[in-house]
């Protein structure tokens, strides 16, 4: 769904792959007599390419028929109102080609296919970057890369790499995941503490639910991870200027209502509005069990409500079975939701729209499930999500019907098989 820049990244990679100079340098290096014997580990052409992939086959059902449960902001529908059971919620496939011509240079292209906003399964480029290692601890990247917003962001689509069926919705339901631009990776050991920095700067164009054009500009994300033995601590700061085209066009209708409408538009305009986020995470995994959580605070003067989101989770491994629990909660609120005054028949729908856009977002979920590692490269998971909506609040449910009572709970049962190859 992101055509604008992916052609550029692809051709850059194609050029590099085809670049005879790179190949020559590599072959020169390998044709030298094996003075330093690591060179005798000749990197032949076939060793320069690695092909890998991941995928999930899943089916999920809901006991609610007045609203859909979705797992990303892009999905048009999910189990619930649209249908009782669906395979489209969690199923996806990803393939990756890595090019490693020398010790210092690498290029990665990863393409994923999953349900898009228009019901298509059109492949999307998740990663497409070239990387150069300036030293063994410092690398720079250019191209498309996933933004390290949260602990699981970079591999949130790789079900096999997650303890649960999917990352907690309250936390990972964000309209912005990749960035076309530059990245820096740095690592350093402070005694027994391993420090990793990953920073990205760039922009993103994508299509969300209902085909909304989402644009992020001047987006940067700085992530710091400290690992000590089996415990890691993470702190990150992210910021971007966001635009939601069609939502802004709709909001512009308020300007036809005189000064009060102008004031509303000025406050909530969805064009180039700054959004900033702080996130902290902690994770402990000695092998036999795990426990962790993340907390984030969003700062915004528009659209995306400012506020706090957090989750805690834990699991215990009984050989190949790892049952887990999770609790996640979001409370986001502008404080007050403006209302347009006038004849109810005229302003009613507009006020409802405004509430849906800027009103409070409060929701929490209790998740219980288990992962069964039935093979070395495949896992089966079963998970039950109990989603609690709140009165006078929005939720992360989609296609909510007028007879849905906010305050009600929704149960979603999911079965998945995750695999890597």
């Amino acid at each position, binding site marked *: 769904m992101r055509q604008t820049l992916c052609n550029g990244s692809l051709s850059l990679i194609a050029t590099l792959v085809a670049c005879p100079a790179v190949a020559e340098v590599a072959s020169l290096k390998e044709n030298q007599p*094996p003075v330093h014997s690591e060179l005798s580990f000749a990197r032949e052409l076939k060793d320069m390419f690695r092909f890998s992939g991941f995928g999930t086959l899943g089916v999920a059902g809901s006991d609610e028929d007045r609203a859909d449960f979705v797992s990303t902001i892009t999905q048009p529908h999910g189990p619930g109102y649209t249908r009782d059971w669906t395979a489209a919620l969690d199923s996806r496939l990803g393939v990756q080609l*890595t090019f490693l011509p020398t010790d210092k240079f690498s290029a990665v292209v990863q393409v994923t296919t999953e349900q898009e906003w228009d019901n298509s399964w059109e492949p999307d480029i998740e990663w497409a970057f070239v990387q150069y290692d300036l030293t063994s601890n410092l690398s720079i990247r250019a191209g498309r890369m996933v933004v390290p917003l949260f602990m699981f962001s970079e591999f949130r689509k790789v079900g096999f790499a997650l303890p649960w069926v999917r990352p907690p919705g309250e936390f990972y339901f964000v309209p912005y995941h990749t960035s076309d631009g530059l990245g820096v990776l740095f690592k350093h050991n402070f005694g027994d503490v391993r420090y990793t920095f990953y920073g990205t700067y760039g922009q993103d164009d994508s299509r969300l639910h209902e085909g909304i054009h989402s644009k992020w500009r001047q987006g940067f994300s700085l992530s710091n991870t400290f690992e000590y033995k089996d415990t890691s601590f993470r702190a990150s700061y992210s910021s971007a200027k966001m635009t939601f085209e069609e939502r802004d066009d709709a909001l512009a209708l308020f300007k036809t209502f005189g000064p009060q409408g102008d004031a509303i538009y000025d406050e909530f305009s969805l064009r180039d509005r700054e959004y900033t986020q702080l996130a902290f995470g902690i994770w402990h995994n000695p092998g036999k069990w795990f426990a962790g959580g993340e907390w984030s605070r969003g700062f915004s003067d528009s659209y995306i409500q400012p506020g706090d989101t957090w989750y805690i989770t834990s699991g215990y491994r009984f050989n190949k079975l790892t049952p887990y629990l999770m609790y996640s909660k979001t409370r986001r609120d502008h404080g007050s939701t403006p209302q347009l005054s006038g004849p109810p028949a005229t302003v009613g729908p507009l006020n409802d729209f405004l509430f849906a856009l800027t009103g409070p977002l409060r929701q929490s979920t209790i998740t219980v499930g288990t992962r069964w590692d039935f093979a070395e490269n495949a896992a089966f998971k079963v998970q039950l999500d109990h989603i609690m909506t709140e009165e006078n609040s929005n939720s992360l449910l989609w296609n909510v019907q007028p007879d849905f009572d906010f305050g009600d709970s929704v149960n979603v049962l999911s079965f998945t098989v995750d695999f890597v190859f």
Partner: protein
Amino acid sequence: MKNLHVKLATLGLVLMCTAVEAAAEVVMVVGRNSPIQSLSRHDITDIFLGNATSLPNVGKVTPLDQGDESVRAEFYQDFTGRNLSQIKTHWARNIFTGRGYPPKAVNSIDELKSLLQRNPKAIAYVRPEKVDESMRVLTLK
């Protein structure tokens, strides 16, 4: 005579390390000409999980995995406390974020010997009975 010394020395090392590592099902080995002397368990974990790619005074090192699942499982259980699914999960997180690949896996003891001989900076683990004069068993710090 020289050969006998080497054999005796190797035997001695093997016996010594087997004694030290009595609980372990695998021993760490390098080629006979390797500059790698001794490693801590922490070093080994870091190298095999891709958290470290080089050693002080040695430079870039090359870990080698065993194709044999039972030997591999024993090694990772012993050194990391994790089963093979967990190790696979660790690598899935690295591979699909462009952060690296697991060690190359060798499928026979002959392939392992040949790789250790060709690359003095390669590190491997083997069952103690597979150790021969082409390898040197690493003492663990």
